[in-house]
């Protein structure tokens, strides 16, 4: 981070809060730095009617992982940070498998531990830099979408209740965010999130902001095995005795 950036970040925060202490300034700087690095990286979930799509615009290859019952989409400021996030997710999965069982690796488990790790990376002193990675966890079994920001803040959306809207992660560059929001709103107004339309949108932003990588996919493409009911569901009391 250049001295100019540091100066600007501290000044911006000072304008809002007076008496910024050294520790707090460090925290703000870490946040500011992560936001700056994630400025042109974004992950979007958009839903119109029954149609739903994920769109990732980034400088680096995003990661999409299928964990059986849910999948995670994450993008980051650099490939090394995406790699670190992949490692953490693997570690969480491994620990759960070790102590409990693979069946107990739920989306809420991933959400809980990832959120704690990211929060720690911002707030703890052992971390020199925040981990500039943001996650979307899509769980079709519980019909829920979790989003986790780089600072550990998370939100959960019930997919069934989300109607004609989009959920945006990253894009801390205000200009990009404004333009994206405008274009996505236009898509919602026209009820058009066809593949062609989204590709058009993707190409426009990739060209304008010089983004190298993008991903566009439907969550339905990632298969989740159906529950295999083996036992009868007749209550024992109703059985003729």
């Amino acid at each position, binding site marked *: 981070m250049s001295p100019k950036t540091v100066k600007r970040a501290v000044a911006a925060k000072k304008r809002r809060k007076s008496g910024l202490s050294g520790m707090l300034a460090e925290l703000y700087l870490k946040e500011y730095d992560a936001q700056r690095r994630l400025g042109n990286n974004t992950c979007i979930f958009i839903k119109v009617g029954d149609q739903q799509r994920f769109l990732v615009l980034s400088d680096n290859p995003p990661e999409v992982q299928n964990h059986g*019952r849910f999948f995670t989409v994450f993008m980051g400021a650099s490939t090394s940070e995406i790699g670190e996030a992949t490692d953490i997710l693997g570690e969480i999965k491994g620990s759960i498998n070790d*102590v*409990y*069982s*693979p*069946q*107990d690796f*739920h989306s*809420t*488990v991933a959400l*809980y531990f990832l959120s704690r790790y990211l929060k720690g990376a911002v707030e703890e002193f052992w971390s020199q830099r925040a981990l500039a990675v943001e996650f979307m966890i899509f769980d079709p*079994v519980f019909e829920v979408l979790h989003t986790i920001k780089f600072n550990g803040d998370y939100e959960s959306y019930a997919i069934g209740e989300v109607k004609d809207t989009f959920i945006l992660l990253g894009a801390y560059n205000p200009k990009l965010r404004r333009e994206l929001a405008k274009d996505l709103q236009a898509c919602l107004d026209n009820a058009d999130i066809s593949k062609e339309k989204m590709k058009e949108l993707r190409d426009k932003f990739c060209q304008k902001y010089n983004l190298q990588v993008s991903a566009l996919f439907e969550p339905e493409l990632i298969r989740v*095995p159906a*529950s*295999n*009911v*083996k*036992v*009868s*569901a*007749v*209550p*024992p009391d109703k*059985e003729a*005795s």
Partner: protein
Amino acid sequence: MRREIFEEALRSTIPESALLSETAIKANGRPNFENQKEGYKTLLDSGTTILAFHFKHGVMLAGDRQTSSWFSIMSQETVKVSQIGLYSGFMFAGMVSDGQAVAESLRRADRDFRNRFGVPLSLDGMANYLSRFLRIHYNHGIFLEAWGIIAGFNFNPLESKIYSVEPAGSKTASIFATTGSGGDRAEDELERFRGKIKTLVLDTKEALELAVRAVYMAGKKDMGTSDVRLAVPSVAVITADRGFEFIKPDRVKEARDRLVDQERRDGNVA
């Protein structure tokens, strides 16, 4: 002299429960597992019959009602089947305090997991946790005398499962499981119905009769198992739609009476 000082130092760092006898610490400072063999012997002398098996709607768990201490009967009203989670149950044979501690630890694990992540632990998860719990204690020389059976449901895929877990931490999944001093006789009885248990054709009534019969056969020969004529066994079922629930004692009593009448007619009992 140096060894004595070393042993004393080790003694102060190892919990009291790890030191079952004066010879607990070997010359090399590692716990002596001879004491664990003694523990095993004690368990074989103590009495219980517990069993679990699959039936049409899920899993049935049953246990006798007797708690013994050497040659004395301490209670004829003990309920050995206990609920762990909404869809899981646990039973144990061995030392009561150890078994209760293990059961409480399992309950806490499930409760914490549910509170933190909003979903209950799967049965595989519980069995693995239990196995690790016992294994860690065993490796530290703390022999928990609890031979457990844990049964219930996994959620994805939805399936009923039965695990028997031993104090050293080994866990075995099976279609039926028995343990305790009367476990062998109960197992013989269940073995006769292996085909029916495996194909999940036993309905609740048939399964209840089989459970009562298995406990009855164990109690007939085993000193540590209560006689079903004196103490009605405790029986519980775990089903996919209703979870863990005890079968009402009246219903078990009816099954017991039918069994005893049949035995009388056949001239097997006085």
